[in-house]
C-alpha cells in the first residue's frame, strides 16, 4: 500500500489517486482494473471531498454498485475520508476505452478482447459481427454461440479449430 496516506490536512495528488485506483479490480473480471476498463472518467477535489466520476458499462450491470463500493473501500484504506460518486452517462462508455494493457490482460485470461473494427450494418439494423480471434490458438475460424454470456459485457463463442468455447468481450 502507498505510504503517503494523508493526515487530515494533506490531500494526495490526483495522480497518486489515479495510481491507487489501478489496484481496484473489476469485480466480475478481476484480472483487469477499473482503470483498464476505462470507467473512471474524472477525479476532482471539492474541498476535502474527492469526487469520483464513473460511467456505467451496462445500465443493468449488477457490478456497477459493487464497483463504487470497492473504489470507496480501497480509497478509504488509502486514507481518503470523504468520497462522493457522480454518474456520467454521456459520452456513453465504449469498449474503445479499454486500455491496451487491459486488452492484453483479458486475452491472457482467456477472454477475447473487443474487436476494434466495428460491426457493419448489413440489412436495416441487423449487423454483421466483426471477426473474433480465439484467445487460445488465435484462429479467426470462430462462431458466435450466443450474443449474451456469463456477464452483460460478454458474448459466448466457440473456436472451430481448437474447439475451445470462450467468452468474447463484446464491442459497444
Amino acid at each position: 500500500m502507498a505510504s503517503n496516506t494523508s493526515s487530515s490536512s494533506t490531500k494526495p495528488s490526483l495522480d497518486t489517486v489515479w495510481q491507487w485506483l489501478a489496484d481496484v479490480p473489476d469485480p466480475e473480471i478481476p484480472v483487469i482494473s477499473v482503470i483498464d476498463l476505462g470507467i473512471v472518467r474524472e477525479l476532482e477535489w471539492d474541498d476535502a471531498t474527492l469526487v469520483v466520476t464513473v460511467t456505467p458499462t451496462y445500465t443493468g450491470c449488477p457490478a456497477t454498485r459493487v464497483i463504487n463500493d470497492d473504489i470507496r473501500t480501497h480509497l478509504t484504506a488509502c486514507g481518503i475520508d470523504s468520497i462522493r460518486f457522480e454518474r456520467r452517462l454521456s459520452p456513453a462508455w465504449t469498449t474503445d476505452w479499454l486500455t491496451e494493457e487491459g486488452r492484453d490482460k483479458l486475452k491472457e485470461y482467456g477472454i477475447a478482447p473487443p474487436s476494434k473494427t466495428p460491426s457493419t450494418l448489413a440489412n436495416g439494423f441487423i449487423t454483421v459481427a466483426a471477426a473474433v480471434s480465439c484467445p487460445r490458438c488465435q484462429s479467426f475460424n470462430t462462431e458466435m454461440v450466443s450474443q449474451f454470456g456469463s456477464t452483460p459485457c460478454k458474448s459466448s463463442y466457440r473456436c472451430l479449430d481448437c474447439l475451445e468455447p470462450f467468452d468474447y468481450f463484446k464491442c459497444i
Partner: protein
Amino acid sequence: MNALHAANPALTIDGALFELLTHLGDNSLILGQRLSAWCGHGPALEEDIALANVALDLIGQTQLWLELAGDVEGQGRSADALAYHRDAFDFRNAHLVEQPNGDFGQTLMRQFLFDAWHLPLLLALTKSPDNRIADIAEKISKEVRYHLERSSDLVIRLGDGSEESHRRMQRALDALMPHAYELLQITDGDALLISEGVIGDITSVTAQWEEQVNSVLALATLSRPNSPAAPGGGRRGRHTEHLGYLLADLQFLQRAYPDATW
C-alpha cells in the same frame, strides 16, 4: 414551462414529459419482468442466459427513465417509488409488453416487434435538445442494438426453420401484431414535446419499424397479418387483464413490507 397546447389545453410540457418518461420506463420494466420469468426455463442454456441478460438491461434502463420521470415530476418520487407504489391505471406501458410469455417463439416475436420500435425511437431521442433525455437514449441504444440483432436473427431462424417452428412463429405473429401498432402512435403530448424542442423528432420511427419488420418477416418466410390494430390505451392507463397479475408479483414485497431494503 407551462406552454399550452391547442388540442388539449390541460397539457403542459412537464406533464407530457412525465407521461412519455413513464411510458419508456414502464415498457422496459414490464417487459423486463416478463422476461425474467424465463430465468431457469429457457430452451437452452445460452437462451436462458440471453433472456436474463436482456431482462437485466431493461430493468437498468427502467431505473434511468423513472429516475428522470421523478425529477421532472418534482414530487420527490424515486424510480423505486414509481415502480412499486403505482397501480395499474398509472402505468403507461404499451399492451404489447404485458402480453403473456407464451412459448419461446411468442416471447421472441414480442421482443422483436418491440426491439424494432425501441432502437429507432432511441436513436431519434439521442437528438433531443433536452440533454437528460439524449444522454440516456445514447447510453441505452447501444444495448438495444444487441437486443434487436438477437431477436431479428432468432425470428428469421425459427420462422425459416422446421415446420413446427414456422407454425409457432406465425401463430405468435398473428396474435401479437395487432398489439404492436400502439407503440407507433404519437400522442398529443409527444407532438407538444417535439414542437417545443424538448425531444428529437420521433415521427420517422414508424417508417423504420415498418422497414425492419417487413424485411425480417420476409427472410423468416412469415406472412404479415392484415388484422387491424388492437384498441390499445396503455398510455391512458387502460390495460389488458394481464397487467394486474404481473404487478401483483412485481410489487408483492413492497406492498407487504413497504420500503423494505436488502
